[in-house]
Every structure is written in C-alpha cells, then in structure tokens.
C-alpha cells in the first residue's frame, strides 16, 4: 500500500469506525430511562418561572433576550433570577430613577441582556458546588455568560479621564470599554466565606449586611431561595436585581466624593484601540499604567507614543479580570481573590495638605503650594499606588490590625477610618477619611522622592537600578543619608576608567534622558572633552555599578556623635564629617579635593537626610600607591622614603598582587589578603624595622636573599631553598601582623582597648592574632600580642605617629571585572585601608 493509500485507508476506516463506535460502543442498559424523570426533578427553568406567577418580568426578560428556548430545553444552566417584587422595588428606588428606569418597558435591550447574561452560569450548579472550581479550588469570583461585547458603552469626552491622552476625543463620543476583559461575579457564599476567613463583621462592613451562617450573596445581593431544581438546571433567587457593579476605577471616577483622588489616578491612563468595526468605527478600551506588582503579565509601562509612562500604579484598577497573582496550573488567579483600594475622600485629601510643619503632609504642602494638581506625576503615582492593596482577602477589616501596604509598612488604618465601602466587580473600594501616604516619604528617602531636583538619586534607589530602597525602608534602623541634587550629579571620577588608557579616564555627568532613564556623559580627565555616553541600565548595568558605589559611599548606618570626624559608610568607605556644634555642615570623601557643603537637613523617621553639593568620592589611591609614594627614590613618584622598608618587605613578600583571579584585575595592585571591607595598616618607621632586624625579631630581606646554612642545618639536611622559604614565611607572618580588620581612624570611632584581628594566623588555634587598640580622638595607641600572658598594663604599647602627617592616609584597592583593566567596565570588588605610621613594630610572639 502506498503512502497515499494508507492515508485514504485511515481516512475511510476512521470515519466508519467513528460512526460505528459512536453508535454501538457506548450502548448502555439505561436507555429505557431516557423518557423518565425522577419525581423530585422540577419542570424546566422557563416553565418553572412562568408557573410561579410572580416572575413575570423575568420571564419577559428571557423572552425579550431570545433565551426562551434555551431556558425551556437546553441544559445545563444556572440562573440567578429575581421575582417581580424585586423588579418593582428597583423601579421605585433611587438607583432606578437615577438610571431613568421606572418600569420594565423603559429598560433598553442592552440592559436586559446585561441583566440576564450576567446572571447565567454554565452547567447546573448548587450553591455549594458553585463555591469550588472544577479542580476543587475555592471560587471567590467567576465569569458569567455575559460577554463584554454584549454592550459597548458610548463614552462622551466629558466622561473620560482628563489627561492629554484623551484630548483627541475632544467633543466626541466614542465606543470605549472601561476595560475589555470579561466581567466577574463575586460570590460571598458560606463555603467561600469560611475558606477565605471573611467574618460576619467583615461582611457587615463591606456590604452592610450581617449574614446568617448559611446565607449566600452575589456581590451584596442576598440569595433568598437557593438550589431550586429544574429539569435543565438550578435556579437561585436573588433579593435584588443583579446589575453587575462598576469596576473600581469606574466607581472612583463616578463618585463625586472621591474626585480629588480620582484626578490624581486618572493621570495614569490612556485609551487603547481594542478593535475596529467593519464599518471602520474604532472601539477603544481604557487602560491604566501599572508596574504589575503581582507579576501577572499585565503591566503597562509605556504610553501610546512609546514613551515611559508618566507614573506607574501597582496595578490597573479598571482591570475586570484582576488577578492578585499569576495563574496556577490549578486555578485562574482571578477566581481566588480581587483587589482592594483605600480611597481618601475629598475632605481627607484636602486636610492632608496642612501648613502645620509637624503635619504629615507639610513637606508636600510647601513644595506644591497646597495644590494636588501641582503634585508631579511621579509623586502622584506613588500616592495613588500606596492606596492600592493587591489582595482583598488580605484587606478585610478583620485584618486591619496587622495589615501592611505593598511596600511592607504597617498601614495605620482602622475600621473607624472607613466612611463607606463598595464591592466592585474587580475589587473593593473603601472610602476612608484619611490619606495613607507612602511611608517611604517618612524615611530618609522622603526628601529625595519629593524633590523634583533629585530625580537621579530617586530613580537610582528604585527597582530599575540599585534597589537601594529596600535597605532604607528599614524604619527601625538609623541612617544618615547624604543626597546629591541632580545639578551636582556630575564630575564623578569613574574609578573603573582609571585602568583605561589616559585618554579614556573620565568623569561622569549623570542626567535623565528623554525617556526618563539615567544616562551619563563621559568627559576625558585629560582633555575635558566628551568621550562618550553611558546608558547601560538595568540592575546589573554599569550605571548601577557606579550609582551603587555612590549610594554606598553616601550612606551611614547607625548613630553619629557630634565632633567625631571619621565614619565608615555602608560601603565600608571612610567618610569625613565636619561639625559646628551638633550640626553636620560638610562631608568629604577621601577622594574629594574639598569638602561638600550640607545645604539642607531633614529629620525623618529612620534618620537624617542631608543635601550636599557634590558627590562624595572615595579614595582614588590604592594601598600600594600610598606606600609607594613614600618608598624612596627607587620607586617612581615617591616623594620621600618614610615607608621604604615596609614597602620593600610588602613588595618582596608578594603582598601586592595584580590579578586576584583569572577574570579580574586590580587597577594597579591590591593587598593579597584584603577583601571587600575596611582595614587599618600600621606602617612602622624605617628605624623601627631596622631595629627589629638588628634584634633578630624577624628575618631581614638581606638574610632571605642571601641564605647561608649553619653546619647544624647542613647536618640536618636542610636545603637553602627550604631555609629561604622558612625565613620568608616568618617575615611574612611578621609583616601581616601590621594589617588589621576594621579601619580605625584618628578622630574616628572611639575605641578603648578592643581587640581587632590581624592578618596573621595563630597556628595553634587557627584564629588570627589580635591587636588591642585605643583611639580617643587625640591619639591611637596599640598593644600587641607579644607577652600575651602578662596583664595588658605590662605589655608593650606602640603609638601612631602624627608628627609627619603620615596618619589617616586613606586608600582603596579596586578590582575590576576583566583580566585586563582596559577591558573592564565595572567594579568587581574593593577594600578600603587607612594607613598610619607607627613608632615601632608590632609583635605577636
């Protein structure tokens, strides 16, 4: 049989088999029951409603919508219906009158379709079964038979959000969905309430109804008769008409009490083309810019023009199918939860702007003339987003005691703050009588966030770059945060470029480009000419590397003591503070030629924020360079020989290394054993080292380079190489004892004899020998480990010398991310050292 023949064979016989198997394979023995029905099974849905006699409107509704046959013959259906009295109550209600509907006849077909189809659920389901998904998950929300295209709203320009994106519709009425995803029904059924821990009190607050244990509600509408069994489905009778409520965004826009908040929120939406009818009519949907906090894949971060959105909310408050998380393999996330928004009413919004300097909103009041319309978009977006909670279930009144906002701060909301609440089809809106400002604004980040002249650092702290905000949010910590306004974010001497060719060594000027992204122009240090632009963003980009270095350099963690000059920053860099009384007036990084003036100070919940007029620059000199500068005439660039012997020993013992790993390179050299931290290097005078050599406290370089064996050593079979190695090891251990963990600066943190570990291993304990340090602001005195068995008072002390200004010499070893410094573009690791000349050598044995 040919290939084609096989296909024909299968085609022919498959059809025959399908027919045969369909006819015979499933023949069962119950066919005689097909015309039977159990006694308890009622009539079909349509007849049931008709026979009741009090459901004439609903029967009429079914007829008008063309569903008569469906409700008579087709199974299986679940229908939420209402009796005539419920209709009449609606017709005479304020809601009915507001909608212009005072009789059934006044209901347009679109409204009838909406009412019917949003009440229909596929398959016949009891209330208990409706509480679960097909896979057994609890079903808090579900879609109905209603399709968004059942009714396409025509929206006049006056009803649209007022922002520039809608200006093209001036004086027009256009078809526009408030969101083009399916609508959902919210099920407050007993099983659901129990599983979601929605208490009766919660229900009372959010719907105004205190439910009985077995009561079931759709939105806020009570099911007064449930599980009515019909031949082709189940019926559940509602106590009110089931018009699906607005989504949260619609509700907020339509509620005049929430107008001020809405004006802020509506800055962040735009119309988007949904579809074009065959006749060319364009149908739009309204979408809000959002960062998709819940990672559902529905972010909207750029506008119609491809530009960055003016601000991002946590999520789109109009999204009908809102989901508080990504879908799982077991369940659509929208079925499990919905959103919640805490929306301050107009009065609360106005009260927040207060000229009382002690009030929460004072900074904003001052910055923006007490006018919300002047609040810039980025701040407005922060404010609106902070009133958004991802999860309704986590925002129930019973959770208020421990509720946190999406930044992790406690929310400070109480039941008494709720003015009213509204259950929308995608979330709950609490109208509240207070503003819940983003608590980042209370932290040391606050001034940076508010000040429109501080956009670069504000952006640098955020998720796109350094993610520094997560540290500064720690409200129980204390920070001293030195911030540089945009105008001073320039002349940053790029440490990485110091390994490049002279012409490529650069300063960077930071700014925001047209897309509101951080960018830097590079200027040659040699010529001052522009030599390029760096816009390598992202959390692992080159810009982030530099900005993180700056933020680390400008952040002190912990308290400061008035008068104390030197501190160690979060990034381990020494930073000098200048004081007038109890006030910090200026700061200086070791790499700054002059101090940076403090121009403003803000006291915040977790510390102080200081404006400075420049970038605090860490040291640009390595430990190697610092020593070499005083290493004598034989070393290029040396100005004197005061560190000569110490330098020579370090050099000969291989303490200066260039390539820590095969993929990294020090800018010039780094100290082999110092890693990303801060250290102190004690440099004995040449005389002290020579004396130690003379006294045989350590092998001399000469002795190592000119090894001779004693007769005893020869007799013992020791080789010259072995002896040289042994001497080298001894000298190396000796010299390493002068490198100490933690930078102790004169006029730095006061210490009173505390032990700091050196770099020399005590081989009997496998721990490192300590050095005991005293620093009182006027001197540094060291006690070494020699004669450790004696009381501290009887042991040798060694003083830091200050006479030649060879103390507090700041250095930084930098390792970059390539084996060749000219190819490097980021800092890989670094270590800071402070060097002091000392009067004598330190001994550990």
């Amino acid at each position: 049989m040919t290939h084609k023949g096989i296909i024909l064979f299968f085609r022919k016989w498959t059809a025959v088999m399908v027919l045969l198997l369909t006819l015979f394979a499933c023949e069962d023995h119950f066919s005689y029951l097909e015309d039977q029905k159990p006694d308890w099974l009622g009539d079909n849905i349509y007849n049931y409603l008709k026979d009741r006699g009090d459901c004439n409107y609903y029967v009429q509704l079914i007829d008008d919508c063309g569903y008569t046959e469906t409700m008579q013959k087709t199974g299986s259906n679940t229908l939420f219906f209402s009796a005539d009295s419920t209709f009449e109550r609606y017709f005479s209600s304020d809601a009915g009158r507001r909608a212009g509907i005072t009789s059934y006849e006044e209901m347009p077909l679109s409204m009838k379709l909406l009412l019917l189809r949003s009440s229909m659920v596929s398959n016949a389901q009891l209330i208990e079964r409706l509480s679960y998904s097909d896979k057994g998950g609890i079903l808090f929300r579900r879609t109905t038979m209603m399709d968004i295209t059942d009714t396409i709203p025509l929206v006049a320009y006056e009803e649209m959000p007022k922002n520039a994106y809608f200006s093209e519709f001036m004086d027009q009425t256009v078809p526009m969905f408030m969101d083009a995803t399916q609508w959902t029904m919210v099920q407050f059924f007993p099983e659901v309430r129990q599983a979601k821990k929605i208490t009766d009190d919660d229900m009372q607050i959010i719907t105004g109804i205190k439910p009985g244990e077995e009561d079931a509600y759709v939105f806020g509408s009570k099911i007064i008769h449930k599980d009515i069994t019909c031949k082709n489905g189940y019926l559940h009778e509602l106590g009110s008409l089931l018009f699906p409520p607005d989504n949260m965004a619609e509700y907020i826009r339509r509620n005049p009490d929430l107008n001020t908040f809405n004006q802020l929120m509506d800055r962040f939406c735009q119309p988007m083309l949904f579809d074009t009818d065959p006749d060319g009519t364009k149908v739009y949907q309204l979408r809000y810019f959002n960062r998709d906090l819940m990672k559902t894949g529905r972010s909207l971060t750029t506008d119609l023009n491809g530009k960055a959105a003016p601000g991002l909310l946590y999520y789109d408050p109009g999204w009908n199918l809102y989901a508080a998380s990504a879908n799982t393999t077991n369940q659509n996330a929208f079925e499990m939860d919905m959103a919640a928004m805490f929306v301050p009413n107009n009065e609360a919004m106005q009260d927040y702007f207060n000229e009382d300097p002690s009030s929460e909103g004072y900074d904003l009041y001052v910055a923006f003339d007490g006018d919300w319309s002047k609040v810039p978009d980025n701040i407005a977006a922060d404010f609106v987003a902070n009133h958004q909670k991802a999860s309704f279930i986590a925002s129930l009144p019973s959770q208020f005691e421990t509720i946190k906002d999406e930044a992790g701060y406690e929310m400070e909301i109480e039941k008494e703050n709720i003015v009213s609440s509204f259950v929308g089809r995608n979330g709950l809106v609490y109208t509240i009588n207070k503003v819940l400002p983003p608590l980042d604004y209370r932290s040391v980040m606050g001034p940076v966030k508010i000040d429109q002249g501080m956009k670069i650092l504000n952006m640098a702290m955020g998720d796109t770059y350094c993610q520094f905000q997560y540290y500064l949010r720690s409200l129980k910590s204390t920070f001293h945060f030195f911030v540089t306004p945009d105008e001073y974010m320039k002349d940053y001497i790029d440490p990485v470029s110091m390994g490049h060719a002279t012409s490529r060594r650069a300063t960077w000027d930071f700014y925001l480009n047209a897309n509101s992204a951080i960018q830097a122009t590079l200027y040659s240090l040699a010529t001052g000419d522009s030599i390029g632009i760096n816009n390598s963003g992202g959390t692992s980009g080159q810009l982030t590397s530099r900005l993180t270095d700056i933020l680390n350099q400008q952040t002190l963690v912990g308290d400061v003591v008035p008068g104390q000059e030197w501190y160690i920053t979060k990034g381990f860099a020494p930073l000098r503070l200048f004081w007038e009384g109890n006030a910090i007036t200026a700061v200086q990084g070791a790499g700054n030629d002059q101090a940076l003036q403090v121009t403003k100070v803000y006291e915040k919940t977790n510390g102080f924020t200081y404006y400075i007029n420049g970038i605090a620059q860490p040291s640009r000199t390595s430990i190697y360079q610092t020593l070499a500068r005083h290493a004598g005439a034989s070393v290029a660039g040396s100005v004197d020989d005061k560190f000569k012997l110490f330098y020579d020993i370090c050099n000969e013992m291989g303490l200066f290394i260039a390539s820590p790993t095969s993929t990294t390179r020090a800018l010039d050299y780094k100290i082999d054993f110092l890693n990303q931290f801060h250290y102190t290097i004690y440099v004995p005078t040449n005389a002290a080292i020579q004396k130690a050599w003379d006294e045989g406290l350590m092998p001399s370089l000469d002795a190592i380079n000119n090894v001779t064996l004693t007769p005893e050593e020869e007799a013992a079979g020791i080789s010259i190489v072995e002896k040289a190695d042994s001497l080298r090891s001894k000298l190396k251990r000796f010299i390493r004892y002068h490198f100490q963990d933690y930078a102790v600066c004169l006029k730095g943190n006061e210490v009173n004899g505390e032990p700091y570990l050196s770099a020399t291993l005590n081989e009997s304990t496998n721990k490192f020998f300590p050095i005991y340090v005293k620093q009182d602001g006027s001197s540094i005195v060291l006690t070494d480990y020699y004669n450790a068995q004696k009381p501290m008072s009887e042991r040798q002390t060694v003083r830091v010398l200050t006479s030649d200004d060879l103390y507090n010499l700041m250095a930084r070893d930098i390792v970059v991310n390539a084996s060749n410094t000219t190819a490097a573009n980021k800092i890989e690791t670094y270590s800071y050292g402070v060097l002091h000349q000392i009067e004598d050598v330190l001994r550990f044995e």
Partner: protein
Amino acid sequence: MKQQFFLIGGFFICLFLWTSCVDSDDVGDAYTTFEGQMISNYLDNNTEQFSEFSRLMKQADVYNLLKSYGKYTLFLPTNDALFEYYETAPLDPDTLSMKELKKLIYYHFIDGETNASKAYNTYDFQVGAIPTKNMVGRYLYTNFENLQWHINETVNIVDGDLEMVNGIVHVIDQVLKGNDDLLPELIESDGQYTLYAEALKATGLWDKMLLIEDESYVQPKTLPNGAPMSQRDKYPDSKKYGWTALLETDSILALHGIEDLDDMRAYAKEVYGKLGKSDVDDERDPQNSLNHFVAYHFIPAFVTTDIFVTTYGYVSEHDWFGRKEDICYDGKYTIEQYWPTLAPGTLIQCQKGNLINTTRNPFVEPGLANSNDVIRFIHAESNKDCQNGIVHTLNRLMAYDDYVEYQVLHRRLRMELRTFLPELITNDVIAFGNKYNQWHRYIPEGYCENLEFKEERPSVYMVYHAANVHHYLYGDELEGNGFFDVTFKIGPIPAGKYEVRFGYHVSPGSRGITQIYFDDQPCGIPVDMRLSALSGDIGWQQDYYMIENYNGAQLARNAPYNTEDPYGFENDKSIRNRNFMKAPDSYVGTNWRNDYGHYFGTARNSALDLRYILGTYTFTENTTHSLRFVQMLSGNCLFDYIEFMPVDLLNEEDQH
C-alpha cells in the same frame, strides 16, 4: 502531514472511546496485570488460619482494602490470636460498633502509600518505632530479642516478610492493641513510675497533660494557591497534643536515695539551689524546685526514641562520605539536638545514640552509647505510648543542674527552627527521612504557638518540605513565601553572652531581601538572600584544600580560592567581617554524591549555604527570644537553623 496526524489521532480516539466503554472489571482469565497475589488472596487461600480476621474486615466493610493496590504492612493475627483476645478481654466482636471494629482492624495496618513511605519488612525494623504510624495514628514498636523481632514488646512474628502485590504481611501470635490512656494515667498505671505519678499530682502538671486534640482546628480546604489538597501537598489533618516523658523508674530513683516524694523534694531543692534560683513554696508554681525537677522530664512533643536525635545528612552517617577521618573524630564533631522542656528556661541535650546531657563525645568514645556512665534510654522500657504521649525510661537520674547549664549547654547551640515548633513533630508534619518531593506540608496560621505569621493567599504562606538531597541541616526545608512577616519564639537559651547566627540557603532566583529582628531589635540592615556568596559583598572562597585534593572547585561551580589559605581560615575571617559565615562542615547533601561522582564536599563547600551573624547579645536569664523576619522585597526564605555561640568560646570554634 498535519492531516495524517488528525487521521491517526482520530483512529486512536476511536479506540479509546471504544475501550473506555468496556467494563474494566471483567478481564476474565485472559489478562494478567501483575505477578504474585494480593493480601486478600493470601487470606482467602489460608482461611484455616485467618478466616476470623477476614470475617471482621468484611463485617466492617473494609475487606476491599486488601484487594486494592497499595503499600500496606499488615500484622496479621491468627484465628487463635483473635479468639484468645476475645476471651481475655473479654469481648464479643459482633457487639462492637463499626467504629470500634475498624479501630481493632486498622491497628494492624500501616498504610505506606498514603504516608509516602513503604511497606515494611523486618529488614527495615530498628529498635524503636516503625517510622510510619498505623492506620489509627499510633506507632508500633519493634524490638529484637532472642533472635526474633517483637512488636510492642510481647507480640511475636511467627511468619514474617510475606511479600504480596499490595504490601507485606507479618503473621503475629497476638492481637495488637493500644491503650486509651492519657499520659499521666499511663505513667500511673504502668506501676514503675509511682513517684512521678505522685509528683505530677502534687505539682499540678498532671492537669496540664490531659488534652488530646484541639477540636477548634479546622483543616483548610485548599492549598494557598487554591489547588485541592493531595497526599503530597496538604495542611495537617488535625491538631493533636502530645508530650514525651523521660522518666526514671522508682527503682532507679531509689538508687539515688529518692524513695518517696519528700526525697524527691529534697533532691530537687538541692539541684535548684545550685543553679542560684530562688525557690517558691507553691509546688504548682513553675518556679518551685519540685515542679521544675518534674517538669524537666517532659517535652511538649510526641517523640519516639528513633527520632530523638536527627542524624540525617551528617557526614558521619554516610558510608560513601570520604572525609570522615578529617572531620568526625577530632573530639569536637558531634551530632546533637536540643529539646525545650516543660520546665521554664531549660533544654535537654541529646547526642547521637540518645545520650542525654553529657559533655562526652561518642565519636571519640565508641563504647559510650552502651555505657551507664551517661544518661540514656532503656529501650526495652521505652516507647510506651498512649493517646497523647509517650514514656521513655532512663537508666540514670536526669536533672537540670549546674553541670547541664554551665557545661553541657555552654557550647555552640545549633537548633533547627522546627525545634521550637513541637506541634509539627506531634502531628507528623515533620518527616524524619528522605521523602523528596513527596511531602509538602503547609502550616496553618496559628497552628504553632511559637510561630506567628499571617497567611495571605496565594502568595504568603509557610510550608515544610521533607528532607531531600540538599545540604540543609537535616535536609528538610521550613520555608516562608511571599511578602511575609514571620516571628519565631525561640529558646529558651541559658543566660550568657552569645554571638547569634541564622543559617539560610541562597537562591538568586527566588529569595527576597529580609530585615531580621532579634528581640525586636534590627540585626543590621536588611539581608539580600538572593546574593550569591561568591559576590564581592560576601566574598566566599572555596577551601583550597578541597580543590587540591578533591576537585572542590566543582563543588562551588569554580569559585575563587586562595592557595595560601588551604583550610579557609582567612576566608572565614574575611566573610565574618561582613557578618557572614560558611555553613558547617558536619553535614552534606546526597545530591553531591549523585551529581559530582565524588564524595568529599560538605555544606561548608557550598557557596549557596551561609550563616548570617545577627549580632552579639547578652542574656541575663534563661528565657525565650523572638526572631522576626520581615520581607522588604518579596521572595521565599529557607528558615534553616539558629546558632547561639558563647563568645568566650569563639576563639576555639571549629568548622563543624
């Protein structure tokens, strides 16, 4: 081509439709789906021996159990055993309620399938409890005497290890039965612990151990992500209470001069006094010496002897681990665990081999596990269980005295965080063994007294994963997920000055940034648990010794190393400066055996396992502490263990 698929697909669909409508039960003789026989066949073929058990099962309408697939272990009583039981009880089986009848039957079954374990043959038995409870939730205990295994001390296996398709049958000569006692009643009725029974009444501790189950606990209906529960993924079925008594018999107490309650009072007073504590008169007060002495003998969890010390993952326990000589016999390597007791401020230390409260080390004193120089269990008189507890008998007098406080517990106290969650042990949430990817237990909000968190579905929840192949302490995972705020009440810890550390596992893809608080004080700035230990901010290096000798670079994916720092002492110091420490070298994950084909690395050699130094704290009294984790950036976190290192011992600390 697409059309061919449709055609062929249609053909197979037809076949499926056709076959699906055939009565699958009616396979006749033409189909053999398995070899061997079901347990039901075995009973049916041996009616002369087992007809009565079959009859009972049919009467209880559970006989189909024996026909179903599964991994059952059935301790099958013979007809004689059952008849003798009826006579001595005495009882008429036909008058039993359905519930009673099922209880009688199910007492003889262990359901391995449901519990992600196995059907047990006698090769699996060890002295102690069979790891999986029987079908009424009680442990069965095995002991080996006279070259024969016994169940619950007295029941003999007359024909064991009969392998069936759906399990293993052990024919036994007596009916297995449990008691319905509560723990104090069991202690009293046993007859060997009359002094403790008396003391329990005098101190009021009797009344504290009368609960069986928290009836208010409602098992959630679905998992946090809304999925239905399964055998693998579920919340605990119930919340039962459980206590473990570690008791000396009257005769052992007498050897220490304690012959009546007054003697016990006097002894307790003396011990208490040496601790410098002020005694109160009211014996019902926990600060009373007698109360303290007695309460110290009770652990608020149901702990069988075989799980008293978890050895899972320790390098000494793996035959394949190649560096035991380097690590295990230096006198500092130990396997030990700590149990908080009912006496406030106290811990029991227990080492491998169930050696209690000793500074001696069984790894360098091989005979210690059988010596009467140290406190240990008398196995033949242990694992006596009841509805809400279990009794183990000690060979020597145990007390929380100055030796325990100042010597035994003056060491690095490393405790998995489950130590403080006894509810998880009592209610079989903790799996003591490798149930890789088979055992995910979600922890309900409010389930554990010492664990405070707020579940926010679907993203914020706590879950426990059974031990697997990874190099975590004990191999298992207690995990917080999402934007959580979790507080553990930990301890008690003896007074003193400690460096406190938290052990965790890095995961760049899933962890968050976490602010840790100890006793409500922030422990520095938040920790980025996404950060690889190889990053400059941590600076982890592989020990060159491992690279040189054991291809250790591969263990940490070609991490940097320092040839001049072979054992990593310098690197240890360096990363300590940044508040981190490498993980201990005392345990290992089996994944390294499987993945790398060499068996020398430990958790210390993993660049993903770290200890974060929370700070140095001085405790002025023996008390509990709070350890709080607040996510600043959402993500999950492995709450592995906490360490308390006395600062005066820092200079002597090993890498274990």
